[in-house]
């Protein structure tokens, strides 16, 4: 039996080879299988090789170990930050599996906690917007408060400065002397934070032991947007209410979701499957301007494909062309299965990069919780 570089390699040799080989090479997947592993092929009517082949023994017959290796992950995994614009960001996770990328996406949407208005105590509402509709609108207003500083409140427990942030809305629409209306539009800026706690503690079952600034720091609790229209009124109408914010997650209600949305897509690549030369190259370049260019001149000129990411609007056309008789077998759209282009649009409660690291922490916490029980 051959001398293996490592225990694993020699074992493979034993299984795969007959008479004594003098050298041990790391076996490689045949090109076609490797391509099926790495890429989804986007055909004109359907996608091929969509699933990720993730069984450890999948390529055992070829002597290839497909089992999990942290060393290999560490070697291959990369993150590229593409851009951060305000509360949005795009980055690339390269060398991970959809199971992990999707777990993080799901956590971002449904499991990273935030603060949102949960209870609205209406003292008076003579505007035309119904109490429950107004309350629902209030719930969706993003509240800038670090959720880590708050605790979740259980059921009927009394609200305290550690669980609840309180806003007051007290507004009346009136005629001005010049016959224009004051407070015709009720904007979110009218919501005033009450660091001292509820002004009707008996009715709201809320008792602060100290000023909430002690808990949340000098910045206090504020609104992400001060220009959200909450209601409209006519002179003589008024709205008086107290809104109590609590900690929660998007799993219970979307108002607690810290992201407008978070999604990923796969890295697209356009491949020329064979040399496209001469007049045909000109034709292809005309079909896909910018993406396909003609290199060289004369009869030996050839089509060359540029970066698919720079010509995203042409990619669906590539997909269509790949099914047409003229181009079938010439050009193909593929997507890399382990390269995720991730976008996070935060609601503004937390910065997108904070959200992503928190999502990872939550996934770790889930593992810890499970390990505790094992």
């Amino acid at each position: 039996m051959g001398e293996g570089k490592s225990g694993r390699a020699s074992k493979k040799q034993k299984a795969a080879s007959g008479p004594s080989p003098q050298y041990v090479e790391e076996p490689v997947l045949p090109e076609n299988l490797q391509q099926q592993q790495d890429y989804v092929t986007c055909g004109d009517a359907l996608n091929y090789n969509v699933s990720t082949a993730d069984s450890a023994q999948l390529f055992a017959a070829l002597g290839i170990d497909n089992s999990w290796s942290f060393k290999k992950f560490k070697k291959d995994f990369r993150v590229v930050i593409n851009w951060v614009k305000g509360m949005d960001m795009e980055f690339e996770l390269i060398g991970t599996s959809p199971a992990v990328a999707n777990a993080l996406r799901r956590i971002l949407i449904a499991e990273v906690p935030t603060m949102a208005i949960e209870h609205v105590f209406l003292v008076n509402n003579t505007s035309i917007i119904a109490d429950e509709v107004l309350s629902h609108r209030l719930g969706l207003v993003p509240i800038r408060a670090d959720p880590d500083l708050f605790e979740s409140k259980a059921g009927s427990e009394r609200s305290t400065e550690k669980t609840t942030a309180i806003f007051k809305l007290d507004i009346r629409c009136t005629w001005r002397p010049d016959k224009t209306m004051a407070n015709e539009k009720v904007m979110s800026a009218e919501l005033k934070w009450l660091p001292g706690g509820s002004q009707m503690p008996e009715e709201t079952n809320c008792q602060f032991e100290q000023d909430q600034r002690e808990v949340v720091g000098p910045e206090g609790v504020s609104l992400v947007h001060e220009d959200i229209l909450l209601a409209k009124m006519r002179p003589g109408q008024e709205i008086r209410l107290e809104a109590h914010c609590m900690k929660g997650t998007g799993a219970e209600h979307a108002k607690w979701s810290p992201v407008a949305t978070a999604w990923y897509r796969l890295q697209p690549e356009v491949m020329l499957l064979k040399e496209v030369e001469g007049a045909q190259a000109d034709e292809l370049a005309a079909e896909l301007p910018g993406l396909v260019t003609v290199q060289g001149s004369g009869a030996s000129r050839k089509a060359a494909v540029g970066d698919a990411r720079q010509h995203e609007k042409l990619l669906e056309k590539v997909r269509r062309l790949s099914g047409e008789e003229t181009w079938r077998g010439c050009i193909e759209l593929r997507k890399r299965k382990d390269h995720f282009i991730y976008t996070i649009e935060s609601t503004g409660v937390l910065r997108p990069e904070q959200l992503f690291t928190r999502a990872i922490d939550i996934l770790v916490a889930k593992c810890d919780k499970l390990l505790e029980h094992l």
Partner: protein
Amino acid sequence: MTVATGADTGATFALEDEDHTLANALRFLLNKNPHVSFVGYSIPHPSEKVVNLRIQTTGELTAVEALRQACQSLKQLCGHMRSTFTEAYEQYEQTQGSDESP
């Protein structure tokens, strides 16, 4: 969590308060374990927050041990992902900071 049925090498775990998020990530890692002969999960009812995770091993290790390894691998993976992401972000911020013009 409860272990519902099984001998040492095969067990069904009922993960309470979990869903596809954790179950699919664990399934992925368990599937990548050469000593696991079968792994699959199901959510019996969409409004019940429970996942049934079935693990059968080839005998070299117990189902519990396989699950423990998967959890640890996932933690390790997350740790590396977090540090790589933070590093990339810091680097991005630095390059942005130097490029920024008033």
